[in-house]
């Protein structure tokens, strides 16, 4: 909302600098975004052109004599509309104006134009920063006082208010005036309204009824006859322009002016276009249509409130008038409406028709019914002032059963203390309420019955009044204390703890955390998953763009996209992970949000260094991270070959704990890499589903295991086996053998010295007993047993044995 201080000062004295006033308003909840200064031109005066002659050396220029009363000067002017007798804005040498040639704000200097010295300049709107019109000079009204500094005549300061939705009152100049008065200890001067009425009473000239009072709490109207439609006087146009509204004609301008002044939207009908002099406020009938003032044809339904005459809608109540009853140059008789429409219904109509107007901005927030007749009378008076005519005696005032009583809210000193943690003296409370325009009645020593003034719609309960008090006296006056109640027991959330631990571990493993948007495209998902078209992921109904439409069921797509976008910046290593939620639709409920962790590794295995080779990451880098991570969590994971459309068919494993699937690890499928434009030769990736990982965590606290007292014995076993025996099964069998403490795979061999279709794995095997040093014979016996079971179970034999 644009608030010109010159307008505000009509209703309340302001003796603070604009900056200070803005600060006080902001602290009290009326945020001032910007302070715009109009003026600051310095040496620019109201001048009068006394003579216009042709320029001796240029056809399109003229020599003008300008007087400021005190002095007379000759200036060169190129504007087509300059004429003798005009009041104009005259910039003398030294004025601070906008130079249209250099496109900068500059100090005006004397200049010689085509051989004639110009002692100043007659200004257009552009040079003064008052508008975009550079086609001619500004013509001031005839009564503009010659010789006055233009800063005093046209200068102003405009506060740009950034209002919160509750402070409807401050959408009006008077509303802000009340606020300013309360904050600075001044009094508000409301406009005095009085006018003469004559002729037939309004009640005998028009029939007005409200058929749907739930949508129209109050409907008031006045009637003027014999008005003459034309442009508004300059002061009225200036007010509307300064607030950002466009002047239309004198009657419509008055309704807009009073809306800006009091907040009440009004509407004027051409009385002679209302059929049968009948107005019915009712829900629209199915199939009814109305062409609104913007020229659009609107299809109406019973959800829309219309103002209708005997036959048809003539206005969309509280939203926009109808073209069929519009004020035009031909209008002579005017019916003026000031009503209280239902907020939610008004808002819904405006939203469904995408037709948010200055009126709906106000009605939707719920105007108070007391306001309607006040604004009606003010507008009636002003229309008569600017457009003439006679006013019919009386007003129409239809009030619904809900009544029009002002809310009365109790306020106790106990409540103030309970909310704020400090007492505020009743005297100070009363003074604060007085300043804000509330009235009150004492109900006992420490209780007030407070009546809310008609311009405030946001005060309904005792807490609201507490805020009125504290925001006016300032929050600095409230003490600063610590919570004194006992600290509640806080049960940590297991899945959050696990996720944070996983994040820390992955960062420690040299992987960078990323965070992605959870909205992706179907195409992105199809590139990395097999999508079931019958049960698609959840979709946003109003996506901002087509690339943010579906709630991701996987982290893969965006992580691989991150990789692609970063691969342009070097050779890596690219190591990224994300811990985020995936979304799984459920029937009749919110989707399941699964905590998931995924990572991608690509490019160089080591940081580039003169000490390191240039080997690239592969499957085993990703698997190593997963194994290490799960081991750190105390989860004994196993790995099984797996098929997944995103992964290389021969280089992908399910990560399991018993039968539970914990995740997947592998190299990205070459076809997926090609589709995504990822750099060859391979990208390794993993996913972990944190719910099953959480379930796999050891139930009990990790317990200390005594260190071995006796030395272990080592045997190196080179084993031969059919090539398709998984190494994991061999390790597993060795590890499970009695007496074996651990085993390390240290070599894999296939080739010349081995039979075709076989391979050799070599292990360091450590034997250990808790209670004694194993003898050679015992170890040998154990090895023999181990070899027997390897041969029996997996057809594994000792190499060259």
């Amino acid at each position, binding site marked *: 909302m644009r608030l010109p201080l010159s307008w505000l000062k009509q209703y309340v004295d302001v003796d603070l600098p604009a900056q200070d006033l803005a600060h006080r308003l902001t602290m009290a909840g009326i945020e001032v975004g910007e302070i715009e200064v109009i003026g600051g031109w310095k040496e620019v005066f109201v001048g009068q052109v006394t003579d216009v002659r042709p320029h001796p050396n240029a056809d399109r220029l003229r020599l003008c004599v300008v007087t400021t009363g005190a002095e007379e000067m000759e200036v060169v002017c190129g504007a087509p509309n300059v004429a003798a007798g005009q009041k104009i804005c005259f910039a003398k040498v030294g004025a601070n104006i906008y130079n249209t040639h250099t496109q900068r704000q500059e100090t005006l200097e004397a200049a010689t134009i085509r051989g004639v010295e110009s002692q100043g300049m007659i200004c257009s709107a552009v040079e003064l920063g008052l508008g975009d019109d550079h086609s001619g000079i500004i013509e001031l009204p005839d009564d503009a006082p010659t010789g006055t500094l233009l800063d005093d005549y046209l200068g102003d300061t405009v506060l740009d208010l950034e209002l*919160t939705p509750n402070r409807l009152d401050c959408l009006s100049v008077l509303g802000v005036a009340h606020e300013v008065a309360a904050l600075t200890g001044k009094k508000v001067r409301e406009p005095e309204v009085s006018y003469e009425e004559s002729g037939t009473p309004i009640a005998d000239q028009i029939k007005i009824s409200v058929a749907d009072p739930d949508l129209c709490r109050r409907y008031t109207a006045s009637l003027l006859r014999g008005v003459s439609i034309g442009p508004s006087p300059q002061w009225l146009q200036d007010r509307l322009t300064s607030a950002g509204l466009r002047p239309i004609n004198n009657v419509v301008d008055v309704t807009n002016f009073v809306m800006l002044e009091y907040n009440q939207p009004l509407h004027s009908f051409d009385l002679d276009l209302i059929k049968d002099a009948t107005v019915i406020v009712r829900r629209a009938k199915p199939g009814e249509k109305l062409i609104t003032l913007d020229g659009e044809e609107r299809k109406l339904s019973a959800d829309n409130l219309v103002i209708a005459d005997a036959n048809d809608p003539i206005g969309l109540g509280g939203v926009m008038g109808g073209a069929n009853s519009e004020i035009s140059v031909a209008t002579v008789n005017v019916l003026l409406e000031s009503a209280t429409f239902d907020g939610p219904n008004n808002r819904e109509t405006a939203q469904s028709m995408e037709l948010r107007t200055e009126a709906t901005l106000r009605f939707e927030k719920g105007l108070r019914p007391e306001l309607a007749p006040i604004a009606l009378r003010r507008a009636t008076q002003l229309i008569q002032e600017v457009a003439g005519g006679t006013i019919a005696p009386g007003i129409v005032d239809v009030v619904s059963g809900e009544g029009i009583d002002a809310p009365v809210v109790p306020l106790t000193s106990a409540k103030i203390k309970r909310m704020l943690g400090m007492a505020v003296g009743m005297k100070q409370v009363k003074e604060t309420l007085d300043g804000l325009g509330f009235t009150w009645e004492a109900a006992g020593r420490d209780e007030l019955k407070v009546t809310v003034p008609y311009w405030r719609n946001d005060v309904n309960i005792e807490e609201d009044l507490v805020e009125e008090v504290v925001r006016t006296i300032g*929050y*600095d006056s409230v003490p600063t204390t610590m*919570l004194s109640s006992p*600290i509640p027991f806080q049960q940590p959330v297991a899945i959050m703890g696990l996720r944070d631990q996983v994040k820390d571990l992955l960062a420690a493993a040299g992987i960078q955390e990323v965070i*992605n948007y959870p*909205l992706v495209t179907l195409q992105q998902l199809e590139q990395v998953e097999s999508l079931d078209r019958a049960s698609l992921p959840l979709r946003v109904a*109003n996506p901002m763009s087509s690339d943010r439409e579906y709630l991701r069921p996987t982290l893969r797509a965006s992580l691989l996209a991150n990789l692609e976008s970063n691969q342009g910046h070097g050779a890596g290593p690219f190591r990224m992970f994300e811990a985020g939620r995936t979304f799984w639709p459920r029937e009749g409920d919110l989707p399941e949000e699964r905590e998931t962790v995924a990572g991608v590794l690509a490019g160089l295995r080591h940081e580039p*260094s003169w000490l390191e080779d240039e080997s690239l990451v592969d499957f085993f880098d990703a698997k190593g991270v997963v194994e290490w991570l799960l081991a750190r969590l105390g989860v004994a994971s196993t790995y099984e070959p797996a098929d997944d459309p995103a992964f290389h068919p021969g280089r992908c494993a399910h990560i399991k704990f018993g039968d539970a699937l914990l995740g997947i690890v592998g190299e990205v499928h070459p076809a997926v890499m090609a589709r995504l434009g990822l750099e060859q030769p391979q990208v390794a990736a993993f996913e972990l589903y944190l719910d099953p990982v959480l379930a796999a965590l050891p139930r009990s606290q990790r317990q200390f295991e005594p260190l071995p007292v006796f030395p272990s014995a080592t045997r190196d076993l080179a084993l031969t086996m059919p090539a398709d025996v998984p190494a994991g099964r061999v390790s597993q069998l060795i590890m499970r053998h009695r007496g074996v403490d651990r085993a390390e795979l240290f070599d894999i061999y296939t080739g010349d010295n081995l039979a075709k279709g076989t391979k050799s794995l070599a292990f360091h095997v450590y034997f250990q007993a808790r209670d004694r040093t194993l003898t050679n014979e015992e170890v040998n016996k154990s090895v023999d047993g181990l070899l027997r079971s390897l041969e029996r179970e997996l057809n594994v034999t000792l190499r060259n044995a």
Partner: protein
Amino acid sequence: MTEPSAQPPTAEGIDEITRSASAELDTLADLEAVDQWRVSYLGRRGALTTVLRGLATLEVEERRTVGALANKAKTTLEEKLEERVRQINEANLMRSASEDRLDVTLPGRPPLSGRLHPTTKIVREICDAFVAMGFGVVEGPEVEWDHYNFEMLNIPKGHPARDMWNTLWVDYEDPKGDSAMLLRTHTSPMQARVMESREPPIRVVVPGKCYRYEATDATHEWHFYQVEGLAVGEGITFADLKGTLYEFARRMFGEDRKIRFRCDYFPFVEPGVDMSIDCFACEGNGDGCRICRDSGWIEIMGAGMIHPKVLEGVGYDPEKYTGFAFGMGPERIAMLKYGIDDIRHFYSNDLRFLRQF
């Protein structure tokens, strides 16, 4: 070198062996020579060993005296040997170390380095500050019902305040027809969820992602985090809210921070405020400061006393319980702390950005 002798050992002879052996040892510079020396004096056929062997030929009385001398001489020579070996070893190490020089200005072998996302760090820092004041940390669903995101927060359908949160709705047909699904526009729905599931006293903070239908620019993201806070119990006041947030501000931004509240509006609190801290960049002076845009103050979060309608909605008696709530944007705080000028850096996941934190 002394030949093995059949002569009976004498004190003088032992002395002589000790002296000459010591003198000889001092001249030896490598371990091999020292070992030969050991063999020739202390070895099985060494000079001193021979002397010791000859003790048997002496009278009992003399054997005791000379024997003691001989044993002492042996100990002395063994100690000298040990000392000499140590000296030579050290000298060898010093020499070889001075030969095995590296160009220490060459870069070292870099470990792989991973970092947490700056949002994660700031969210943890924020939560930790409140945990220290007895708050627990909980999270809630990112896909929410209109019921929790709006209705339970005193923002019924058709309420103009809904304009404050431009919403991304989820395409979902409710079988009962009364629940709209959406991406939560703030973490505040957890206020109602937490209160519904617990009894006062409550102190929690709720970090998490939020979403708005909003065009992005340098200061706006459609996808962002919030940290919500909630304290409910008997006798909780606005003064307690001030105290709690003051402690938070000092912990995050420095001990000398000042705080300021101004009136603001959120439908689920009353009174509602906006908290600023004095600018840590210019110490509140404001002149020409980029961080606080000349004002000397930086808005950090919204807060207020929980609206009685919200308390009633979850079945709490507002005459018995009061509480406060607050909410802040971690990205904004990270931007202030790290001097990041564009919020869009956060989720574009450019490693060149992420590696800076």
